[in-house]
C-alpha cells in the first residue's frame, strides 16, 4: 500500500483517521437517538394492570368498565412525564427521521387501537377473543413495521410471535385467551423492552469506554 502526501501535508494515515472518525460519529448519532426499551416495559405493565385489577376485584361492573380506560390514561400520563423528566435531565434535543418514523408507527397504532376498542365498547359489539386478537395483530403490525425500518431481526421475531398469538386465539378454546394475552405481554412487551434496555445500556457503556 503506497503512502502519499498532498500539497497541504495530508497523509494517507490522516485520511484513514478521518474515515474512522466519520464512521464512529455517525454510529454515535444513531445510538443516541435510540432509547425506547422502557416504553415497552411500561406498556406491558400497563396492559397487565387491568387484568390484575379485575382478578383482584371480581364481579364488579365498575372495575370491568373503567379498569382499561384508567390504565391507558395512566400509561399516557406516566410516559409523557418520564419523557419530559428525561429530556430535562439530559438537556439534549436530538431527533432523527428514523426515530420519528418509528414513533409515528407506534402512535398511530395506539390511536387505531383506541378507536377500535372505543367503537366496539360503545356499540356493545365487544368480545374478549375479538378484542385480544385485534390488539395482538395491531401490536404485531407495529413491531413488524419498526423491525423493517430498523432492519432488526429480533424485533421481527417478536412481531411474528404477536401475529401467531393473534391467529392462535381464533383456534384455541375461549378459556385460553387470558393466558395468551398475558404470555404475549410478558414476552413481547416486557421481555422485549428489557432486552432493548439491556442493548441500550451495553451500547452506552461501550461508548463510555471509547470516550475514556
Amino acid at each position: 500500500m503506497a503512502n502519499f502526501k498532498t500539497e497541504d501535508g495530508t497523509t494517507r494515515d490522516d485520511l484513514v483517521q478521518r474515515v474512522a472518525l466519520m464512521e464512529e460519529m455517525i454510529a454515535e448519532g444513531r445510538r443516541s437517538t435510540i432509547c425506547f426499551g422502557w416504553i415497552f416495559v411500561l406498556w406491558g405493565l400497563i396492559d397487565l394492570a387491568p387484568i390484575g385489577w379485575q382478578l383482584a376485584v371480581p364481579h364488579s361492573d365498575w372495575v370491568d368498565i373503567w379498569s382499561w380506560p384508567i390504565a391507558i390514561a395512566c400509561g399516557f400520563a406516566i410516559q409523557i412525564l418520564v419523557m419530559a423528566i428525561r429530556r430535562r435531565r439530559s438537556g439534549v434535543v436530538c431527533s432523527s427521521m428514523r426515530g420519528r418514523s418509528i414513533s409515528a408507527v407506534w402512535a398511530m397504532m395506539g390511536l387505531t387501537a383506541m378507536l377500535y376498542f372505543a367503537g366496539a365498547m360503545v356499540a356493545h359489539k365487544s368480545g374478549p377473543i375479538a378484542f385480544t386478537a385485534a390488539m395482538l395483530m395491531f401490536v404485531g403490525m407495529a413491531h413488524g413495521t419498526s423491525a423493517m425500518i430498523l432492519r432488526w431481526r429480533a424485533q421481527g421475531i417478536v412481531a411474528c410471535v404477536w401475529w401467531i398469538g393473534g391467529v392462535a386465539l381464533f383456534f384455541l378454546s375461549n378459556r385460553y385467551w387470558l393466558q395468551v394475552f398475558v404470555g404475549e405481554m410478558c414476552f413481547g412487551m416486557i421481555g422485549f423492552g428489557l432486552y432493548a434496555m439491556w442493548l441500550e445500556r451495553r451500547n452506552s457503556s461501550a461508548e463510555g469506554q471509547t470516550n475514556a
Partner: protein
Amino acid sequence: MPELPDLDPVIHGKLRLAVLSLLVGVEEADFTWLRDKTASTDGNLGAQMMKLEEAGYVSMQKQFAGRKPQTLYRMTPVGRKALAKYVAALKTLLGAAL
C-alpha cells in the same frame, strides 16, 4: 495520472468533520449534545460551529426549552452536498493511495 481532488478545508478539520458526521444522522441537535459527543469545550465547539455556519453547512436556531436557553443546529442541504463531495474526494484519494 489523473488530478487528485482537493479536500474541502472547512470540512477537513477533525472537530468540524465530527460535528457534520453527527448531524448527518439526526434531524437537529443541540449544542450540549454535540459538545458531549465530540468531547470538546464550549469555546472550541462554538468557534468551529461558527465556521460551519459561515460556510452555510449548518443552520442555527436559538430557543427556550422551559426557561433554559437552547441552541439547535441542523445540517443544511448545502452542507449535505459538501459532505457527500468530501466523502467522494476521500474515496478517490484513498483509492489513489492503494
